[in-house]
């Protein structure tokens, strides 16, 4: 097995300038391309051995951030510290970081074995050790039998694993993965998600993974940084980000959500724009007057009887049985977009949610996340 990257390969030299718990620190790092800001100054700490995910739509700056860590892009300002060493001005081939590229970038003229051994050859690892490490790396990604094939003879998933082995064999402090599953079909992608998570557990190296697929991020990451137009919106565990999104963008990008524009009245009741009172745990605190409530579809409950306290009413637009759950879209006077609700299989008879029937629904106060607080 490949051992965890304990120390930097340039061991001994660099003085420890930061807490060893962080493999990567970005301090005020920004990037401008010809005057346009690709990345606003950002601070980010990635912990030792964690599977960290940069998540966001295209153009949000996630790949730029990855390229800054890899050294392929020069920072306009700020500094990048990897394992306590300031590498801001160190070229990629001297950084203790390896990358798995989206299109894999395997060398077509070299066999799988020679591809994997390339990094070791470059750093002049003795032949015997190189052979052992290459074999171990191929074993790690379960491609031992393909050592003598050329990349063109492998399937997409196999090529992807060669790329992972080629990077990990160098025992980098950090493995950077740039949408490595993007070119694969859905089923293979799911398999490789499991595979990558296993490899991460086996080697214990810090992984930094870039993706625009929130499900992929949730499936693998220990922590996620959600990015939007050159800024980090929120950093947290998948649960934190799903349950307590810090902005409307995060709530919208990660999972499905319903938004209600609300007002807080003097008596502490919270009402929608249409004037209907709704459940909200923040009614008691008096330092705000307007906000957006975010409620996940699975938190929406249908009232057992009409006129239940703090209910909204609406007309069922569509009710779709999707196997493990039923998804209901409700036209509601208090929101612009239809309210989405999901009901687990067997929880409720479909007939009761017939299209065009009127329903009343509500949620528990602690399920409503209050966003965009504003003073009067």
């Amino acid at each position, binding site marked *: 097995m490949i051992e965890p990257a304990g120390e930097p390969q340039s061991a001994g030299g660099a003085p420890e300038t930061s807490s060893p718990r962080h493999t990567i620190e970005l301090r005020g790092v920004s990037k401008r391309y010809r005057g346009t800001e690709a990345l606003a100054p950002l601070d980010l700490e990635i912990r030792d051995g964690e599977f960290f995910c940069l998540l966001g739509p295209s153009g949000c700056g996630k790949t730029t951030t990855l390229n800054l860590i*890899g050294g392929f892009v020069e920072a306009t300002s700020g500094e990048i510290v990897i394992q306590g060493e300031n590498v801001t001005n160190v070229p990629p*081939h001297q950084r203790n970081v*390896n990358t798995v590229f989206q*299109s894999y*970038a395997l060398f077509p*003229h070299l066999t799988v074995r020679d591809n994997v051994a390339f990094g070791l050859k*470059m*750093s002049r690892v003795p032949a015997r050790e190189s052979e052992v490490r290459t074999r171990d790396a191929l074993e790690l990604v379960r491609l031992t039998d393909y050592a003598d094939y050329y990349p063109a003879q492998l399937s997409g998933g196999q090529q992807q694993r060669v790329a992972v082995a080629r*990077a990990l064999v160098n025992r980098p402090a950090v493995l950077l993965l740039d949408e490595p599953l993007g070119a694969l079909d859905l089923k293979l992608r799911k398999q490789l998600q499991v595979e990558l998570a296993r490899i991460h557990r086996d080697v214990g190296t810090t992984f930094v993974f870039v993706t625009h697929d929130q499900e992929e991020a949730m499936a693998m990451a220990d922590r996620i940084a959600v990015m939007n137009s050159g800024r980090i919106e929120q950093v947290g565990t998948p649960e934190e980000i799903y349950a307590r999104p810090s902005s409307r963008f995060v709530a919208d990008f990660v999972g499905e959500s319903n938004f209600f524009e609300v007002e807080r009245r003097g008596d502490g009741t919270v009402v929608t724009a249409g004037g209907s009172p709704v459940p909200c745990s923040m009614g008691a605190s008096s330092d705000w007057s307007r906000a957006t409530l975010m409620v996940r579809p699975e938190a929406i409950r249908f009232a057992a009887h009409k006129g239940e306290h703090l209910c909204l009413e609406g007309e069922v637009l569509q009710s779709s049985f999707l196997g493990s759950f039923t998804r209901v879209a409700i036209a509601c006077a208090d929101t612009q977009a239809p309210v989405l609700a999901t009901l687990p299989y067997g929880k409720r008879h479909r007939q009761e949610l017939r299209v065009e029937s009127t329903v009343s629904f509500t949620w528990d106060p602690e399920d409503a996340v209050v966003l965009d607080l504003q003073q009067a």
Partner: protein
Amino acid sequence: MAAENADVVARHRRVVRAGLGAWAVLIYAFLFVPIALLMLFSFNANRYGTFPITGWTLHWYEEALSNYQIQDAVQTSLQVALEVTMISTVVGTAAAFPLVRSRLPFRGGIRASLTLPILIPGLLIGVALLSYFTNLFNLQLSIQTAVIGQAVYATPFVILVVASRLEGFDRLLERAASDLGADTWKRLRYIVLPLIGPAVVAGALFAFTLSLDEFIITLFLIGGHNTLPIYIYTQVKFGITPEVNAVATMLIAASLSVSLLAFATPTLVRLARRRLATARPGTSAGRAA
């Protein structure tokens, strides 16, 4: 009525097709009959190097190969061709990189003008270089001045071949190599050159054949020496001897085989790689066992 019509159309089509076929044969004959005759006469015992064919012989080849003037000309030709190949391969390959990769302004224009010597008549290149060498620099004409003249002509071919290969080169591969610890030189040595290698070899072979039978530029610039084409030219001034036919035949054979090699190199490399790839898994299984 309709059937009759179709019949007419079909007959018409047959006639046109036969006519075009005959025309194609004529063109082929026009191109290749003289060369075929020249080859034929080189084996003809008739000492005037023409019809009638009085018998078959290799005598003229023997004669040609033992003629020291011809030996000398062949040697000069090979020396010139090798030097031209080296210069134009190195210069052409190096030039292809900025032409494909840099963000130079007017890159298209620069590229066009660098490949222009292909279109400039050899006569012009020859005269221009002659006055440049003799009037401007007072150089003695020699094999070296001929080499420079031919390199001017051959380099653009190398640029074209290598540049077209570089266009299709995935630069991400270099980034990956850099990520794995390869500096600029190692990237060139282990990634770029092996991948564009077939094109470089093809370019070199082109340069070699172009040089081997280049005549006009060489005539202006080589001074007192003879390359093979120039020797043949001086001989035919006094009538075509069977010996010249033999030399010309050998020259054709050499040029043809080198150009064939040039065209086939990329394919051969690909085939060899595939062969290796399918052959080796077996050996690795043996090693594992």
